């Protein structure tokens, strides 16, 4: 008895002990919460960091004075004036090349204006500042520019413009856009889903509805779970070895009469992505099929439906929202995944839109990677803008998935 009394204090000692325990409890609760606060701060910092890079002051200079070409202020040039200037000043070879890509007369005023700046005046970015710096140290920046680059013009610029979305790649950050990359990403998503959706749903249906409980099924299931954990770069190596190399005549389109390409095409990359998202697709579809109650199947069997009729008319329609959610997750994964694309051989610089499965390609995350790793600050700014584009795409996809889940979720 007396030993126990030492362990369990009584009277005032008990209450002071209790207070101590509650104090510890509160301290730890705060610590637990602070972990989440750190997560929130990190997310905020990341978003701030990206937006900070996408807007800000730019000091740029013209290599050639615009006055050499025209007497009108350059902002007021009309389409016809631009056309005559370009025709007169560009070498005929360069002009014809541009004309072949797209008829000069058909181009809009803003397109021609960009050409004018890019080819003739040759804008030269001297320095860029982040949004925070631009907003808080505006006067200092103006003073600095006036001192260091007396000829330069200072402008508050949003790197994320409608033009950024519609212009192709360029070696100059000021004129680069993400059109080629966005189209490349869309091709990838299309090919990956075309492969992974039927195969993934088929595998899930087999595992949930047909597969007997035996060793083979166990192996398939374990294998799928393991594949989901394989690093994405390993899938890239698989794609390089199988799609780019072994199946080159198919993926380069040589088999279909395409001659000017090797295996590093959007088709190879898309199939690699399809295999990469396959486990994700199967696991999600399995969950969705599992959630369809057995009574539905039994009712169908009861009126004489075959197994496939039951699956096609009753199980799959009811599992559809879950399968859709899984597909959207797979699409997001395809949009954001970078490493396998690097390995499979995304082109680092192309300005031609991908127009067939056998085209060379680039993708949004590849561009972000390329631009981030350049030393010049203006490329970081367009990397930030591309990240904004990518995140907006991903967030809207995920929001769709959540909406879909909430609206079509049925409680059985």
């Amino acid at each position, binding site marked *: 008895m007396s030993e126990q009394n030492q362990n369990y204090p009584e009277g005032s000692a008990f209450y002071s002990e209790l207070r101590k325990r509650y104090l510890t409890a509160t301290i730890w609760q705060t610590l637990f919460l602070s972990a989440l606060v750190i997560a929130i701060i990190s997310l905020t910092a990341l978003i701030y960091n990206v937006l900070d890079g996408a807007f800000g002051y730019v000091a740029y200079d013209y290599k050639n004075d615009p006055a050499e070409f025209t007497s009108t202020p350059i902002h007021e040039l009309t389409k016809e004036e631009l056309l005559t200037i370009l025709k007169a000043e560009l070498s005929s070879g360069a002009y014809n090349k541009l004309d072949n890509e797209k008829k000069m007369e058909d181009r809009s005023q803003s397109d021609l204006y960009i050409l004018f700046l890019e080819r003739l005046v040759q804008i030269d970015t001297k320095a860029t500042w982040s949004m925070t710096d631009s907003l808080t140290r505006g006067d200092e920046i103006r003073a600095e520019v006036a001192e260091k680059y007396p000829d330069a013009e200072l402008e508050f610029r949003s790197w994320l413009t409608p033009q950024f979305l519609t212009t192709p790649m360029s070696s100059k950050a000021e004129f680069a856009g993400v059109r080629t990359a966005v189209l490349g990403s869309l091709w990838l998503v299309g090919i990956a889903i075309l492969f992974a959706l039927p195969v993934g749903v088929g595998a899930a249906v087999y595992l949930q509805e047909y597969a007997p409980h035996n060793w083979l099924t166990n192996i398939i299931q374990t294998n799928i779970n393991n594949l989901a954990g394989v690093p994405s770069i390993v899938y890239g190596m698989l794609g390089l070895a199988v799609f780019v190399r072994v199946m080159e005549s198919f993926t380069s389109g040589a088999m279909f009469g395409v001659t000017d390409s090797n295996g590093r095409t959007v088709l190879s990359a898309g199939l690699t992505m399809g295999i990469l998202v396959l486990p994700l697709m199967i696991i999600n579809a399995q969950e969705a099929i599992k959630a369809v109650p057995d009574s539905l199947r039994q009712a169908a069997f009861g009126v004489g439906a075959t197994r496939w009729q039951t699956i096609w008319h009753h199980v799959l329609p009811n599992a559809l929202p879950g399968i859709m959610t899984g597909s959207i997750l797979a699409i997001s994964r395809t949009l*954001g995944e970078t490493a396998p694309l690097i390995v499979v051989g995304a082109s680092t610089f192309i300005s031609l839109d991908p127009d067939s499965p056998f085209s060379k390609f680039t993708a949004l995350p590849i561009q972000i990677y390329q631009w981030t790793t350049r030393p010049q600050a203006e490329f970081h700014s367009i990397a930030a803008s591309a990240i904004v584009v990518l995140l907006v795409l991903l967030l809207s996809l995920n929001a769709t998935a959540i909406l879909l889940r909430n609206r079509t979720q049925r409680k059985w």
Partner: protein
Amino acid sequence: MKEETLNIKPMETRGFRQFNLKKKLRISESLIQGLLFFAGILSIFVTVAIVYELGKEALLFFNDPDVTLGKFFGTTKWQPGIGQYGIWALVSATLTTSSIAILIALPLGLASAVYLSEYATQKMRSILKPILEILAGIPTVVYGYFALLFVTPILKTIFKDGIQVYNMLSAGLVMGIMILPLIASMSEDALSAVPRALREGAYAMGATKLETSLQVVVPAALSGIGAAVIVGISRAVGETMIVAVAAGAGPNFSFNLLDAAETMTGHIARISGGDLSYNSIDYTSLFAIALMLFLVTLVLNLISQWVVNKFREQYE
């Protein structure tokens, strides 16, 4: 006598048609089942293809007279071009960045999970969980941007000249943030699966919420938490883009957090990004690294599944 009474007349004689209750063979049904089986088995082919292709090229690499297993695992310089094949130059960076990441993600992820599962009200959960989901959904190349252009400059102001522009610390820290939501959500699932009765029991004994959480609920969910940690490690080892952007280019045998060094994944990404000729030693060496990477993550994933199955406390 007895047999005669049991002998029931055939159905036809009572005016019924005989039903054949045996399973009818339906060609299209079997065909569909065959196709579905093929879809199911395809995932096995993928694994076989990975092992075969990586193994084949890795074998070519090890068959090179210059390369010996002793050199591969025993030396610390990696430069296939001039006959140096010490994988430790790359493994050291992988170990360093992954360790930093786990040291960040484990305490933070676990604490988040305990808070979400044990403390948070329904309303707070509905705000906090989406934030973790967004963190989990951000592409890793974006984390790379964040590491290089946000975390590294901050570290630069702290360590001044002691730190290189590309360094493992920045990559590891950001990788930790990337893995945090994974560990948090897997651990939270494990914690939520612990039945309420256990908590009620602890409360009845006079335990505080903290004592209940840490001494009753967490131990009961330990298998799930362990699995989460192992999956987290596997994710960190296989992570490519953050280290490719922020940790540096060029193999460097170093465990100094402030140094630049290249991980296994980063090396694959950098070398394969260029124009690589097939059958060169550079090409096959990448497959040897990838095979190691695949085996390490495979073992980690198998362990995590085994932990879950073996040590799971069965309730109900």
